[in-house]
């Protein structure tokens, strides 16, 4: 069975339950999936649970292999994870930080690691920042370096937590088209996005998370409906169809909670 499958994912923080037996549909290679939902819905928690960074109940399968039983080193080769932000205090230079992503868990030769890391920075258009300390980069630049760290091991599954939150318009397009390209090469891409317009434009599938469960999932036009948006976000929205079959979400205002 090819793809990512999550079944009955539960996470508690102390006495507070964040995810309560959440199921994800089978996410197939070649697809970009966006996790959306209100703040504190548990999107990031779900991403960290899938990456096995967060203790959780339930099971996550990647190509039929249960991830919690996969040795750490093998998992690092299978999964690339991009956190919401990188620490801004580190004096590591960007290139070093990407080399660390290759050499920390693996015994890779220095020459090969250096060249691979540099190639990834070039591919993302940030080769010029290679020798800059992370502390000297802007939030958006750091986010691009963080993407480089996530994809440098050429993982099968790519998990990204709000990857565009600090990016300008051009870099958003660059990052999202890179994600599309990576998916096109047969990878599974899952990203948390808040911007529903971006989600509508770039995702094959949107999963709406609400109240610790999967509230709705499907193609953007199936999920981004006025009714579902009202249920999940409590806002009144109009959904317009533009040329090329694209959809646009227009928010009118607050919706009186039922």
């Amino acid at each position, binding site marked *: 069975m090819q793809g990512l499958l999550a079944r009955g994912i539960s996470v508690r923080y102390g006495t507070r339950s964040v995810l309560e037996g959440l199921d994800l549909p089978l996410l197939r290679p070649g697809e970009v999936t966006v996790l959306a939902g209100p703040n504190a819905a548990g999107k990031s928690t779900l991403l960290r649970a899938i990456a096995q960074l967060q203790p959780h109940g339930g099971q996550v399968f990647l190509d039929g292999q249960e991830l919690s039983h996969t040795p*750490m080193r093998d998992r690092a080769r299978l999964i690339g994870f991009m956190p919401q932000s990188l620490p801004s205090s580190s004096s590591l230079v960007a290139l070093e930080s990407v080399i660390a992503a290759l050499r920390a868990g693996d015994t890779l030769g220095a020459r090969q690691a250096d060249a691979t890391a540099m190639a990834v920075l070039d591919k993302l258009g940030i080769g010029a920042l290679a020798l800059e300390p992370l502390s000297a980069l802007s939030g958006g630049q750091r986010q691009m370096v963080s993407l480089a760290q996530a994809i440098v091991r050429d993982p099968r599954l790519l998990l990204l937590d709000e990857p565009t939150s600090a990016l300008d318009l051009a870099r958003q397009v660059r990052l999202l088209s890179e994600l599309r390209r990576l998916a096109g090469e047969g990878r599974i891409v899952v990203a948390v996005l808040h911007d529903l317009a971006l989600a509508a434009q770039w995702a094959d599938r949107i999963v709406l998370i609400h109240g610790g469960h999967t509230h709705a999932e499907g193609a953007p036009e199936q999920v981004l409906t006025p009714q579902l948006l009202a249920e999940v976000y409590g806002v009144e929205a109009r959904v317009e169809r533009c040329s090329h079959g694209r959809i646009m979400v227009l928010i009118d205002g607050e919706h009186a909670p039922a």
Partner: protein
Amino acid sequence: MSDATLQLYHRQGRRNALLVGVLGLAALAALLLDLVTGPAGLPLAETLRALTGGEVARGTRVIVWDVRLPVACMALLVGAALALAGAEMQTVLENPLAEPFTLGVSSSAALGAAVAIVLGLTLPGLPAVWSVSGNAFLFALGALALLQLLGRIRGGGPEVLILFGVALNFTAAALLSLLQFVASADALQQLVFWTMGSLASAQWPGVVMIGVVLALAVPFSFRAAWKLTALRLGEDQAKSFGVDVAGLRRWTLLRVSLLAASAVSMVGVIGFVGLAGPHIARMLVGENHRVFLPASILTGALVMSLASTLSKTLVPGVLLPVGLVTSLIGLPIFFALILRGRRR
């Protein structure tokens, strides 16, 4: 473009390796300087001849080999051990203020020493000259074990360990004050000298012991260099790179506990080196632990060696406690480096 950048990166790498080499040479030079200074006023040539096994008066040989050399070597090794311990603690506890001193290791060692000096409670079977060091070692190691145990019970991240460490520091300091309060005048004087940090009582067996601990710890530290570097990017990042962060923390803390406990038990409370050594190294070579760790070790050794020399020369005819001197000479350098800003 990318080839040029890579070349530049490798050139920076060579520059950093060179810097580490220079630090090493400077530490050696400081060791020599330490050897040739002393109240006996031996000329340099005479000292060197005694060192290389040449023909010298018996008194000279005794001064050089049995008095100055163990003290000088002890300074070098203690500096190296404290700085390495500080560097690794700062990384695995994700806190730039972490070091044996701030985590209560030093004050626990001092408490151990006080128990030996004031109460006369010592480890059975240990020769009398080792009783104070033995107690200090035991208490320092015990403090770190307690810290890890509390951290394990409570769960949670490194900030919990730091809070426990600070609490431990105050507890040990309070108990130490209590012992000082009830101590006899003689015992009190001995204890105060011990807590100021002194190299004067350094002996070969102690030097060998700390040398062995350092030699055992360093290869493991260097092997973990990339893992530690990855941890600077955050715990989640390191984990997703395939690093067993919990295991790395546990083993690193065990390693640095041994280092810190041996260093502190040999020479008493010496602050600053464990904190400033790594910070100076970081400002010089950055945070890639493959160069940062060796640079920290050598910076610590250099600072401590210079402090040892100065402790003999700062006030003519008086041997100052070396713990005071590390702060006195270290602080201005430290401030200068902070004010000048990062080089890279």
